[in-house]
């Protein structure tokens, strides 16, 4: 049989584009979008701050200098000092670590839990689907910030608990996303093809359905990091999130509310940091969406 060479209309080599896998492809698309790259640069900036910042600004995040309270930005204190006489720049740099970890960790947690529930619901269907979907419905019927407040009230204020609360409120979003993705991919023709070659269900799930539902999860995940950072800041602002003396941005904002007029820098910079980071993730999420999953809408 190997000597069989059908009278074939040969394929000209050059006709096949020489690009690589879908991920690399996505990266190429992503790179093309200026906004997305801008987003990535912003995020990278803050990530670098989070990683290396504490070495640069080692001194003084909790160093109280009563003599230097509420100093405006100057050569010594680039972004001024707060009411303890602490250097705001150092605190913002350290705050990047907090905000980013809360953002990433909570989203990772919700993705893991949400994906698991979503797959179970979408793939096995029937009553498991009904129950899980109802639970998602119920959770989504609560305004998320209220739910977060309630959860933090139960667990007690604190950064870890705020993180948990944010993770919990995001679970149904991912669960639903994955579920709908699984449901729609289940109907795709290549799944039909996989069945036709006699593939087992579990293998179909892990080799076909899961990898193909990852793109929207990544996109949604990036955007969710943005919201998670905002939510953490909101909880911090309400005094339910990070606790003193953690330099969490939302908390820094809340702490400096009363200096709005007398020392506006104490609240302008933390707010700006929140906004920029969140903007970075939103920009990147948008870019990723265009690159990975052009069909997915807002």
């Amino acid at each position: 049989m190997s000597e069989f060479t059908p009278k074939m209309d040969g394929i000209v080599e050059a006709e096949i584009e020489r690009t690589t896998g879908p991920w690399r492809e996505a990266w190429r698309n992503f790179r093309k979008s200026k906004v997305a790259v801008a987003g990535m640069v912003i995020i990278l900036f803050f990530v670098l701050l989070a990683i290396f910042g504490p070495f640069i600004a080692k001194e003084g995040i909790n160093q109280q200098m009563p003599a230097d309270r509420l100093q405006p930005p100057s050569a010594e204190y680039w972004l001024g000092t707060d009411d303890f006489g602490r250097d705001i720049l150092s605190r913002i740099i350290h705050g990047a670590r907090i905000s980013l970890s809360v953002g990433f960790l909570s989203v990772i947690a919700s993705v893991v839990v949400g994906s698991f529930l979503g797959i179970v619901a979408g793939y096995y269907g029937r009553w498991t689907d009904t129950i899980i979907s109802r639970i998602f419905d119920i959770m989504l019927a609560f305004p998320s910030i209220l739910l977060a407040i309630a959860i933090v009230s139960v667990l007690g204020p604190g950064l870890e608990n705020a993180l948990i609360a944010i993770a919990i409120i995001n679970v149904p979003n991912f669960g639903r996303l994955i579920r709908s993705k699984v449901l729609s991919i289940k109907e795709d023709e290549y799944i039909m093809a996989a069945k036709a070659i006699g593939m087992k269900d579990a293998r179909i799930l892990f080799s076909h359905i899961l990898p193909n539902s990852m793109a929207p999860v990544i996109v949604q995940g990036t955007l969710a990091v943005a919201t998670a950072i905002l939510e953490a800041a909101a909880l911090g602002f309400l005094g339910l999130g990070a606790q003193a003396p953690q330099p969490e941005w939302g908390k820094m904002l809340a702490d400096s509310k009363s200096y709005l007029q007398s020392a506006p820098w104490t609240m302008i910079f933390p707010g700006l940091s929140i906004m920029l980071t969140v903007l970075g993730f939103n920009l990147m999420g948008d870019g990723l969406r265009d690159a990975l999953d052009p069909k997915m809408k807002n």
Partner: protein
Amino acid sequence: MSTTPLLKVKNLKKYFPVKKGMFGKTVGYVKAVDDVSFFVNEGETLGIVGESGCGKSTTGRVLMRLLEPTDGQIEFDRKDLASLSQEEMRKTRRDIQMVFQDPYASLNPRHTIGKILEEPLIVHGVSDAKERKKKVREFLEIVGLNAYHAKRYPHQFSGGQRQRIGIARALMTNPKLIIADEPVSALDVSIQAQVLNLMQDLQKEFNLTYIFIAHDLGVVRHISDRVAVMYLGKMVEVADSEQLYEKPLHPYTQALLSAVPVPDPDYQKEQIIIEGDIPNPADPPTGCTFHTRCPFKMDICTKVTPQLTEHTTGHSVACHLYVSQVDDDIKQLEGSL
């Protein structure tokens, strides 16, 4: 070409329930495949034609039990597929493979061609990775691609090339029967010819049996030994392709053939333009489902469903015109004796 049927289908039905309301009450059925019987001989090609929604794809899928049949028998290689367990059926699938219509949707965009082609082997227990790789290379070349294409992803290929990949995938397990569901409908004319030629070559080489589903009558004639015409879930006519195209019996087949534009401005054909649209399959007409559009409608057509009966050897038709005619013929015969 032997004459033992490889596949025998009897009274096959597939009804899709139409559900409504909160509790999903079934309020009716779409009879996508309604009491269809036919056979396919080893090494031949059976073409199935019909307009969209008539149940061609459903028939193909039910044969492989990608959809569970509502009723009927599917005898393949002396086994009744309809009664196999899921696991047994899964194993049997190595002998029946499928080629899909949409070359874009039927390949997983995240897998390389190599992986796509390897999968059937893994699934059916070829554990030696080297052997698998070798076989993948071999088949890539058989379908006219190159071995190094195994590293590429589907989106890097054109439609025709993808369809070749789809065909290669179907060939990987050495199947006996390939069900091809509109394998060329999505392709450009010049590419379509390439793929049709390939399929014909492969059939000869591997002694394959095809069920070739299409709506393009020209394509079907070209590739098929026998042709079945479907209308609204039923088979209305089955014959050798030569016979069917030369001497169509069913009014629907006649209309269909006359409606196909022929790329020859000088060709004079008799135009039968049938009026109206295909009825809703969830609410098909009574009696002969074609009677709403039939130019030869009789009273009986609205009441009695005609059965597919053999009109002449190897040429069956489901139409009251011929039932009575046959009867007449018999009478005449009797009279002359």
